[in-house]
């Protein structure tokens, strides 16, 4: 009687994506190029078939993303023919903000959070779809599928709207915007299983390969370009690694792995003992880091 698990998740996400198209006047998809965004893109293609998704895909580029990500992004936009918008915080570029010089907090705030706000205001988007999942992190586990943001882009966890059944309150006031998370109920395992089943293209960095890395703060950081300063005590090693999440390369830790295909990755996950966000520096700078960033308008 009930649908198999993945089809149920797929249908729920399509329903949410369509709901956004039906009720907002100027929605956008926040496209971060990662595996969750790839799934979201795939679902958006399905949701409106035979039409194309009726909204653009926005990438907020910090200029510190892995080179493979940018190449993949441009290829996907070309192949699928979706409307890709790229926004960079020019103020941050002018000030020379970067993760090595300013630390992860300042870099993320200026180049990601501020940049996102700029882009939302520039285009006047009233709803932004994104691929965040509740199982990623504790404060995300508390967030609604339709999550209202104040005119200052802040998330106020105490004023979240109740969200019953599939009856979503999609109304926003002047200046307010909605963040919408169609993959809320997916787990990391579901994402990989779906990528396998649907044969969804993803950035090759997710697959194990020999890559140049240095050991830093207990993480393996890949040397993606020559902007990365190598300390005298550090050594660049060629290691067989892959990434569980993708972001700015100086802030994203690799894991040692031999998983070179999606089934390999799933097999690896069945024995893994750490959560995927462990490879993100931004969460561990301080306790409650993610909630703070979200309050400020980070996804």
């Amino acid at each position: 009687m009930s649908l198999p698990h993945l089809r149920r998740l797929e249908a729920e996400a399509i329903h949410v994506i369509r709901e956004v198209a039906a009720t907002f006047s100027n929605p956008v998809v926040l496209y971060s190029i990662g595996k969750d965004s790839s799934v979201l893109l795939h679902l958006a293609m399905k949701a409106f078939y035979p039409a194309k998704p009726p909204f653009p895909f926005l990438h907020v580029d910090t200029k510190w993303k892995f080179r493979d990500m940018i190449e993949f992004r441009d290829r996907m936009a070309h192949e699928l023919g979706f409307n890709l918008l790229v926004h960079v915080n020019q103020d941050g570029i002018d000030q020379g903000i970067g993760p090595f010089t300013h630390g992860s907090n300042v870099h993320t705030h200026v180049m990601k959070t501020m940049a996102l706000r700029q882009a939302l205001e520039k285009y006047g988007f009233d709803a932004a779809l994104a691929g965040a999942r509740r199982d990623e992190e504790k404060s995300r586990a508390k967030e609604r599928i339709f999550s209202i943001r104040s005119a200052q882009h802040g998330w106020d966890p105490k004023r979240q709207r109740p969200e019953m059944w599939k009856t979503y309150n999609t109304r926003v006031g002047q200046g307010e915007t909605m963040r919408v998370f169609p993959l809320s109920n997916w787990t990391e395992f579901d994402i990989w299983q779906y990528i396998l089943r649907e044969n969804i293209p993803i950035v090759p960095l997710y697959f194990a390969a020999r890559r140049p890395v240095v050991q830093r703060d207990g993480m393996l950081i890949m040397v993606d370009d020559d902007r990365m300063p190598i300390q005298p005590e550090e050594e660049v090693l060629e290691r067989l690694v892959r990434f569980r999440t993708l972001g700015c390369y100086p802030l994203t830790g690799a894991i040692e792995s031999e998983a070179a295909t999606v089934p390999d990755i799933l097999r690896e996950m069945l024995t893994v003992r750490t959560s995927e966000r462990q490879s993100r520096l931004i969460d561990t700078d301080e306790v409650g880091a993610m909630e703070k960033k979200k309050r400020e308008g980070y996804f």
Partner: protein
Amino acid sequence: MSYVQSIPPHDIEAHLAEHDNKSILRFITCGSVDDGKSTLIGRLLYDAKLIFEDQLANLGRVGPPGTANGKEIDLALLLDGLEAEREQGITIDVAYRYFATSKRKFIVADTPGHEEYTRNMVTGASTADLAIILIDSRQGILQQTRRHSYIASLLGIRHVVLAVNKIDLVDFNQQVFDEVVADYMAFAKELGFASIRPIPISARYGDNVISASVNTPWYRGLALLEYLETVELDPPVREKPLRFPVQLVMRPDADFRGYAGQVASGRVSVGDPVVVAKSGQRTTVNAIVTYDGNLVTAGEGEAVTLVLADEVDASRGNMLVPPAARPFVADQFQAHVIWFDANPMFPGRSYILRTETDSVSAAVTTLKHQVNINSFAREAAKSLQMNEVGVCNISTQTPIAFDAYKDNRATGNFIIVDRVTNATVGAGMIDFPLRRADNVHWHALEVNKGARSAMKNQRPAVLWFTGLSGSGKSTVANALDRILHARGKHTYLLDGDNVRHGLNRDLGFTEEDRVENIRRVAEVAKLMADAGLIVLVSFISPFRDERRMARELMEEGEFIEIFIDTPLEECARRDPKGLYEKALAGKIANFTGVSSPYEVPENAELHLQTVGHEPIDLALKIEEFLDKRMGDE
């Protein structure tokens, strides 16, 4: 989340297929503050080895001093993800967790115990199949236990696990357990749960959580997780009839028109006859379109796009249904409403009512009673305060398609949204339609005056305000306009200001021009009435003939002449625009009452004297007249 049960890694495909076909159980944990809800889920996840190492390591870093005693881990901190929650040591918002065992998949919503956060508990309960109600063995049944049990039952949860927690703190005493269970059974009798399963547990130490405890030899039932893995939900009853709420009409080009939506219940197949619920138009399903190819049939939960044989009017908010098993289509119904907002709900106030895909203006016409959460007694009430539940009659501006909530959770629910703040201020579960509209199905109509006014839920009218300049016509008309608007009526006010400046800009004040002025206004009012509007016309209109001409343009009973009767001296005294002063000084020619006659109406439907009456009272008198007229229909 991980899936660590020893799986042969070489057989990944088979393993995935098995995973995909596992049934899913959605449950909530509820109960009073400190009964150990978050701790229990933490324990379930921990003992089932579903917590990642870094998440455990993080627990050492959070939490106020003194909570993590020694090596023991504060499991609640796994769930309480918000800063305020960690600071206060309570759960504020519902947290969703996902886990799976070899037998089943689970989505658990950990819901807050504080009454203040009832809305978040309702959020979790609305999609759950089962509720674990925790009780502290030492405390027994508390108000929140009753409250949460009532809400769980109200939201349609049919299965309950009564987790009698902290059994370690009463020395694993069977008598304590038996007493708590007996108390609960007695009180829950009226709630109509299909099953209640009591289990003695210690969330803190894990007794009877994932396996039977040696400390409770007197308990021979299943441990909590074993029970959750095997509990039979409602046996697949007779399949419900098709409900396909139209979410979005897809028109990528002139050749394709598809109705996108998620099958709310039942099944739809190519070739099935369907009816558009609100209009009664019949057609047939020609194709079921998806990105992965066309389907022959689609069942509950599937998100598809239907192509129909005929061009029918089925926009968002409508529903495609089988001809022989239609939902209710009505604009009045009874519902149980739970109120979330700090501003109380008052009958008569206008809100936005949202079903899964429909959105209409609505008001509570009658608050029949409030339900006392402790005694379940019906109590009279004039308003619903935050966290209260009431039984209400609701009237919507246009009919909606729905089922009773007990028959269909997806098509029987609604939320109430505040017009100004856009907050979700209430949630409702529909009981039944009023006026027995259930057996009256709409037949396809051509779009005419009747159809247009029926959609606005009103009878068109032309309210013709006549009287001397300064008599108070516009003041009363404005007051009435506001009242009608607040009641969700569709109105338009025509007066000298908005007509003289545009349509009649070319007209002066000679006698012919004044006649032409009235003729044009009457024609405009007629068109507006034909569009289904209630038109308020505020013009001096001094001559009986022109007023008769206007009356004869309208349908029988549609023209309502309202004589605003104020003595000339009083009008001259009020003189709001300084016109009488000028007219009396001879500076304005043809001024009604001064240099031109005013012919008093002889057969006005309403004759209102303004002296000694407030404009608002006069407006209310007209409203009363309109209500009576509506009722006479």
